[in-house]
């Protein structure tokens, strides 16, 4: 009952985004008529071919980019700009090259709103915990250019999580990791999101990925997008029980869902390769 009346955490209504080409001014439609409601505590995965507008949608939710038309609201309040309530992990990490691994992870806590009111001891503890979470102990004092791509991705993830945002916006956050680390961090991510908690205590997550198995493993629903223009092809609820662990990958339902999503994007994926 209250679920019907309650505002969704995140509402996108007929959102479109056009980019004018730099010289010609010809407009390309990157995202078209994108409507989606995400309840508080939902874990949403967005999958779709490269260039279908996934990052563009995320930037608009983050408030870094304005929709050309349509509306985006958080808790019923229109988004007018970025805020620390919506943490972003960028596809290319956006780490500060002049800060060490540890300083990068602590940047928001030290300089932004997330660290307000924290004693310096709490602040250091929180940074410590997130350094450990992504297993970067021992590399804390290196600079980003001195560590591997996978480690950079973990720094960005730790920085996002250390800020403790309400809404997690993640753009292919595990894409550069080796298979094992990736599986470990998927489970870790579910734990941080609040899988073992009651719904009210969970964060809201929007997670962009190329990996269908990853989407099925993580999501409450998977948004399948198609390109030119970027549109929602289908929203698939993932009716797998929680908490999820490695065994769920052997569940026949897991394979079914995987196949269903794959069949939705297969044609386009083949077209993109030729």
């Amino acid at each position, binding site marked *: 009952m209250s679920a019907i009346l309650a505002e969704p955490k995140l509402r996108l209504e007929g959102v479109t985004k056009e980019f004018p080409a730099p010289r010609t001014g010809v407009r390309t439609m990157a995202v078209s008529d994108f409507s989606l409601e995400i309840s508080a505590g939902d874990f949403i995965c967005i999958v779709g071919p490269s260039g279908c507008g996934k990052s563009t949608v995320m930037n608009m939710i983050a408030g870094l980019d304005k929709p050309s038309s349509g509306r985006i609201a958080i808790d019923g309040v229109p988004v007018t700009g*970025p805020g620390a309530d919506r943490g972003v992990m960028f596809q*290319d990490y956006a780490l500060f*090259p*002049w800060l060490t691994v540890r300083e990068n992870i602590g940047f928001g806590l030290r300089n*932004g709103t997330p660290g307000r009111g924290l004693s310096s001891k709490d602040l250091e503890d929180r940074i410590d915990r997130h350094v450990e979470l992504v297993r970067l102990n021992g590399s804390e004092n290196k*600079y980003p250019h001195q560590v591997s791509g996978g480690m950079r991705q973990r720094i960005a993830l730790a920085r996002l999580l250390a*800020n403790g945002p309400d809404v997690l916006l993640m753009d292919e956050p595990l894409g550069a990791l080796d298979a094992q680390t990736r599986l470990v961090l998927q489970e870790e991510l579910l734990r941080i999101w609040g899988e073992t908690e009651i719904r009210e205590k969970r964060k809201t997550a929007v997670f962009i990925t190329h990996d269908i198995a990853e989407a099925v493993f993580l999501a409450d629903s998977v948004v399948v997008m198609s390109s030119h223009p970027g549109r929602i092809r289908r929203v698939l609820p993932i009716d797998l029980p929680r908490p999820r662990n490695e065994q769920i990958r052997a569940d026949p339902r897991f394979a079914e869902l995987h196949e269903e999503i794959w069949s939705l994007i297969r044609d386009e994926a083949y077209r993109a390769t030729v």
Partner: protein
Amino acid sequence: MSVTIDRPMVTSSGQALLRALALPVALLVVWQLWALTLPVDTRAPSPASTAEAFVRMSATGDLPLALLQSIGRVLSGFAIGLVLGTVLGTAMGTSPAFRRNIEPIVESFRPLAPMAILPIAILWFGTGTPAALSLVGYAAFFPMLLSTAQGVSRVDRKLVQAARTMGVSRLRIAAKVIFPAALPSMVLGARLSMGVAWTAIIAAELAVGAKSGGGASGGIGEMMFVFYSYSIDMNGIVVCMIVVGVVALLIDRLFRLAEHHLIPWRH
């Protein structure tokens, strides 16, 4: 234009030092041998006579005094150019509208060598320190302005966006993101500025010395002028030349050292 910052040579071993000294020593030997072939009453300087002149000029205090005077002027003029260049360069790098307006003015003055504005500097400020400062400031201003503008305008937008999604205020973004991101460019600009500032002060003092007809402690440039036009002392001129060169080298080394400390993530 890409900004490359080379690493300072770390010559810890004595062998490396020997190798670095080999060429200068060889040149000195050749110079001395050549000087020995000349008539005894020659004005041509030799290493020995130059060293003698250096000791004499140092002992009287003339050389250290002139050097201090010149260095003091360079540092003050450099500071003026640095501050103006940083402020206007930041505005240029931040605001495309400001850049569009100021760029034509900058580009039309930039090729004008500092010496070319000397007549106006002298008319406005006389032949003393203010004229020299304005000249050095003018010379130091342009490299700093352009490097700062470039550094600020090329800050990775993603980094600013990332900070905004962490609830960092505009002012703090300027201090904690834009400034460090532009710093390598600015340090390079400062190094170039200091180089031209040192060149400009010598030229300015030489020229101002010519007009005022000499006098005490007009800096090392004026000292050279006096040697040239009054005492015709080649040894003194060579001593000044070497001192000017060595100071320029030391300044540059100092900057590279500072780079090492200011931009540790680049090394």
